[in-house]
């Protein structure tokens, strides 16, 4: 599997990009002696004009490069944690619905549809507005709006796997239904879940940026969305303030998408778009 993944150039570019972002996020305190909130120079310093401040300063004279590095921490953290939470809600619900069928399925799917009928972003805004905008509430809000597709995917996968003969064989072996679900069915649904999760991290990062852009971010956390939001009034005079965080978002999301696609090709070789004999 790793062989197939590593032979995919796009996926490897994605891995390199993502690793770079992760390293910058982890080593931000070592790379920059000042916090992103500290004013270090005069405001509106253009990029590449002063040593030590390669990306210039913002409206208050804070180091843009340092802000980017710290912003990576927030984006990645929110992306990963919210995806994990979404999986924790979506996988069990979808698995139960798909495996037990009938009224369990009906109930779970109506509940899922209830969430799907409300526009994602609007619901996220409402949730963050109701709770205080902190990193935790933002993460939970994103998780709550992004689990329904997981539940649907897992349900469909479980439904197709549970009709296979080895599940019948497990029933004949006298295994209990929950045990069949856990040991026989779920392990066979893992690959599409992994693929979907990698793409969900990307979506979550975008959602978090959008929330911060609207000023609904955690006021104590520097994030890429917040940077763009704060710079939008000066976008014509100080382009770099919105440009660099924008690039950071694009690259990170692109990296995750490339990885997701690579995983998809590697885990489902028969669906690969390249011809296979």
């Amino acid at each position, binding site marked *: 599997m790793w062989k197939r993944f590593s032979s995919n150039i796009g996926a490897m570019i994605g891995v390199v990009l993502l690793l770079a972002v992760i390293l910058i996020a982890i080593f931000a305190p070592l790379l920059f002696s000042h916090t992103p909130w500290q004013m270090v120079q005069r405001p509106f310093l253009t990029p590449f004009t002063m040593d030590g401040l390669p990306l210039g300063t913002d409206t208050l004279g804070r180091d843009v490069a340092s802000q980017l590095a710290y912003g990576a921490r927030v984006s990645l953290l929110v992306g990963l944690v919210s995806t994990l939470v979404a999986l924790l809600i979506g996988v069990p619900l979808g698995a139960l619905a798909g495996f037990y069928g009938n009224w369990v399925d009906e109930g779970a799917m109506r509940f899922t549809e209830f969430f799907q009928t409300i526009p994602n972003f609007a619901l996220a805004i409402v949730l963050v507005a109701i709770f205080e905008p902190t990193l935790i509430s933002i993460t939970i809000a994103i998780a709550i709006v992004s689990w329904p597709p997981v539940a649907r995917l897992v349900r469909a996968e479980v439904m197709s796997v549970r009709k*296979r*003969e*080895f599940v*019948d*064989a*497990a*029933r*004949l*072996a*006298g*295994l*209990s239904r929950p045990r069949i679900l856990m*040991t*026989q069915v779920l*392990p*066979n649904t893992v690959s599409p879940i992994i693929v979907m999760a990698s793409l969900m991290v990307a979506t979550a990062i975008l959602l978090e940026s959008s929330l911060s852009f609207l000023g609904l971010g955690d006021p104590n956390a520097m994030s890429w969305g917040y940077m763009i939001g704060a710079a939008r009034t000066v976008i014509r005079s100080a382009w770099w303030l919105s440009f660099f965080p924008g690039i950071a978002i694009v690259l990170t999301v692109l990296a995750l998408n490339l990885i997701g696609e690579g995983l998809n090709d590697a885990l489902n070789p028969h669906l690969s778009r390249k*011809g*296979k*004999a």
Partner: protein
Amino acid sequence: MSALSIEHLSIGLPKGADRAFAVEDISFAIEKGEILCVVGESGSGKSMTANALMGLLPPGVTVKSGRAMFEARDILRLPEAEKQALRGERIAMIFQEPMTALNPLMRIGEQIAEVFAAHDRFSQQERRDKALNLIREVGLPDPEKIIRAYPFQLSGGQRQRAMIAMALALEPKLLIADEPTTALDVTTQAQILKLILDLRERHGMAVMFITHDFGVVAEIADQVIVMREGRVVERGSAASVLTDPQHDYTRRLLDAIPTGKLPPARAPRDVPALEIKGLRKVYRTGGGFFRPVREVRAVDDVSLTVGRGEVLGLVGESGSGKSTLGRTAVRLVTPDGGQVLVGGTDLAALSEEELRRQRHKVQMVFQDPYASLNPRQRIMGALTDGPITKGVPKAQAQARAKELLEIVGLGADAASRFPHEFSGGQRQRIGIARALAMDPELIIADEAVSALDVSIQAQVLDLLRDLRERFDLSILFITHDLRVAAQLCDRIAVMQKGKLVEIGTVHDIFLNPQQDYTRQLLAAVPGADWAKAGAA
């Protein structure tokens, strides 16, 4: 001049395949009006040869050398446009699975007419008339209705007839048939074979008929070539190959065919392992506001008994309810009425929880060796899950699993491997070991050897025969193939449309069948006459 002559053809497989050539240096010729059967097991390269002729090789697979001369042209080297003109018009092909080869969203008549349209022949009205004639010619009932039908509305045999009608549309000189009857019931298969023979008479076309079944060869072949791992190992007229095979491999293939030679009769057993009484199962589909519910009586008031130590064959065509009966007997399907008595307990009446504790009494060997093992579970797990749930200590269950793997001929080290490391026949052995691990009172084998190549099939049948002697097993052996049933079973039960038609010892059923339907089934077995001659 030959209709088609293939000279020193080699087809290369992509790097990393298990061998370098799909077919290597093969040569053969088909004369006008002749049926050449290409026989071989899966992986012998017989389908690749056909695909190469049609220019349908999968990506990565290429013709390395050789020629295929058809009407004085090498069809392997033609430019794509000329190949396309040739396909359908001069060379036509029919496939194994008529459902997937027909467009599910197009009416049969339109699909046939499209063949004419693709080659720019005739006007709309003429195309329709021609299509109608073709449908009539291939013997489809009620042509006016068929022409407007969609593929899903036809049965398997009817679809294959429709495919043949399409293939015949432009009166090709060569018809390539790739296992066209493998997916069909015996009686339907017999009809399709007869149709192909008739059409050959009428149109004088050459037929290249690919099959794995020597019974089919005996029915229709003029010439035979036997392929193995991409090489031709034997060739000759049908009569000489069948009666006097020269190559070892051919002889083994012929020996492996269940010939219908009957095993010595055994004394009937009195103690029942399984008693089925008045079993009924009705499937209801559809049904809405305006539509009545469609009812299919899959099993309709069937009673039968499998004695302890007996192998009862349950034979029937697809849709006869034999599989449903098997699945009801292990209670994977809950019956609508009747009793399933195993050792005095009525499995049909147990609650889910009680049933779970009784499960081990009846075990099943499944048809599809690729779907019946969990791809993410090691063999050891598959073999010990059941016994451990039953209460056997783990160490003991594992020791038993290893022992069983030895018994079914795989070796104890198979336990730590994953299913994908095994071939179809080996997986079926694992399936049998899994059933045995539960020490069941009865094993139900649902088409357990149907998906296997003949030589592998023979090995698995040998294993089953050996095991029943060793452990005095009771087996309900479900199959569509009377020849297979004859090899293993003591008694045979014949099912048709959910009802039990006839039940009796193998000798009674084969030598003295009482019912018309049983006689029909026996007559439809391909190569029946030849087998009889061989058995005498």
